[in-house]
């Protein structure tokens, strides 16, 4: 994983073996922040998988798209990504609705929706990734608003502001989604359709509309997550496959479809990242994460925090 700035790390020479408490804490905190960002990235994916049995492999590519759009808005109009976020989310919702109509809905008629949706979204992901690559060049970009380089200091611990803002975005978005699902009529309709499609239809809930809204919401959340990711990492079109892996990781560990599950899984994964980054060479972090994924897949595929 490339990073624009390694979160939470002020460069001080630390001889190995003298690993101070504050260093460990910094690492854990920045890991947790990151974990919540990954959680937002995965919430939408779990939502479409749970509700519509659609495995949207293209989910992460829309996150990258969101990052790019925020970048261009920032560069051309000088509008801070946080401020442009609502507009971006609405735009991504529309894009999601279009993609749904064109590529996803026809697939729901297939014999094996999961497989077919996987293949179809694999295609969509390739198309979007290469469109971005073609028009915007594959070079890495960085979102650098005014506050991105600085750090907050709490006592002895420094927290980089970029990831902090990204985490804040994630928390707000996750809370919004949770509120939508559990407190609004439409949201409850989404849940109902997920639990019992026939029953929900009998109750007068329009499954088509629910699917459309769910998918749009999912893509919108992906876009927001992309902005959050952009606060921490540099991004480029091809990174979507790496982000996709993290989406899988969080979703499977957290349980498909559960918003709280994704958030908790994100925190867990973030914690693991933080701890392993403090003690092990950088590359081992990924190994541990994928080992975790494999173990969960083999022994508890419904996820550790499934509801």
């Amino acid at each position, binding site marked *: 994983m490339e990073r624009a700035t390694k979160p939470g790390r002020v460069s001080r020479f630390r001889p190995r073996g003298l690993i101070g408490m504050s260093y460990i804490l910094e690492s854990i905190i920045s890991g947790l922040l990151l974990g919540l960002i990954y959680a937002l990235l995965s919430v939408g994916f779990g939502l479409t998988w749970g509700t519509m049995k659609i495995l949207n492999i293209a989910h992460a590519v829309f996150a990258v798209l969101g990052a790019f759009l925020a970048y261009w808005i920032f560069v051309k109009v000088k509008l801070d990504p946080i401020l442009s976020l609502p507009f971006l989310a609405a735009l991504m919702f529309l894009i999601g609705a279009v993609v749904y109509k064109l590529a996803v809905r026809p697939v729901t008629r297939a014999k094996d929706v999961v497989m077919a949706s996987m*293949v179809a979204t694999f*295609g969509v992901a390739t198309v979007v*990734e290469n469109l971005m690559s073609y028009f915007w060049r594959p070079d890495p970009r960085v979102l650098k608003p005014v506050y991105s380089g600085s750090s907050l200091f709490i006592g002895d611990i420094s927290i980089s502001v970029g990831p902090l803002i990204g985490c804040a975005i994630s928390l707000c978005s996750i809370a919004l989604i949770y509120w939508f699902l559990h407190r609004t009529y439409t949201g409850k309709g989404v849940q109902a359709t997920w639990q019992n499609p026939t029953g929900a239809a009998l109750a007068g809930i329009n499954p088509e509309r629910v699917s459309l809204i769910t998918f749009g919401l999912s893509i919108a959340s992906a876009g927001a997550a992309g902005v959050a990711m952009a606060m921490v990492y540099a991004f480029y079109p091809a990174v979507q496959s790496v982000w996709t892996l993290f989406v899988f990781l969080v979703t499977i560990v957290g349980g498909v479809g559960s918003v709280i599950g994704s958030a908790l899984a994100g925190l867990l994964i973030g914690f693991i990242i933080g701890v392993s980054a403090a003690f092990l060479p950088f590359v081992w972090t990924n190994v541990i994460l994928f080992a975790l994924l494999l173990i969960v897949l083999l022994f508890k595929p419904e996820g550790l925090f499934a509801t």
Partner: protein
Amino acid sequence: MYVALTESWNLLGGYAGYVSLGHIAFFATGAYTTAVCMSRYGISPFATFLLGGVFAGILAALVGFPVLRLRGAYFTISSLLLAVVMQLAFLNWEFVGSSTGLWYKPVPVSIVANRTIFYEAMLLLAIAVTLVARRVERSRFGMGLAAIREDEDVAKTMGINTPWLKMKAFILGAFLAGAVGGIYGYYMSYVHPDITFSMNASLLILLMAFFGGCGTWSGPLLGAVALSLVNQLIVTFIGAEISRIFYGLLLVVVIIFMPDGVLPYMRGLLAAKDA
């Protein structure tokens, strides 16, 4: 080359219905085996490509044991994971050259001769793999796989040893892909985690298999031949990214309109016309 790769993927993907996004990992195993043998020990690839296949088969056996127990989506994700983790691992493993890749001297013949040798070898491999696929399809092995695809639980109750069949298909597909990779490694004379483990190739394999038709031996053959041609044309005249966009779109179209492949679709069209 793609014919062989797609046919070998199809053994598990089309016949048994277990879509693997990580087939490229076996291909890469073969390529790296050749690379290491060539660069460290100077052994000719025509001896080592089978070894590459063997290593790939062993990998499949090791990995398949836990992974084949998973169903549908989870299996696909795991296979994708395999390819990516291998890529990451190879990026950091000095024995295979980590991030600089392995470069080695090819057999000293002219470029034309080199290409011809490569072409002949691939052609032979393609024919071999297609024949294998054909034999498998018509055998009891193939029927068992088809039963798995239709309904795995029913197949189990009928007494078909599903885990063993899946494993055989997986290992066989891996062995063939590894052999192909072995020759490819020789031809390219350079291996590197980013290009040898290309996700793009996985996409192409999937597309060729689905386009041509998953269930039979002729499908991937048709798909591979047709799409390789189209690929070369687009890449040469329009651009690499455009070709990938085209492939993505084609994949979506194929899966929506002709999920069984081009041939059945065409037959359906012709039948409708006659009636």
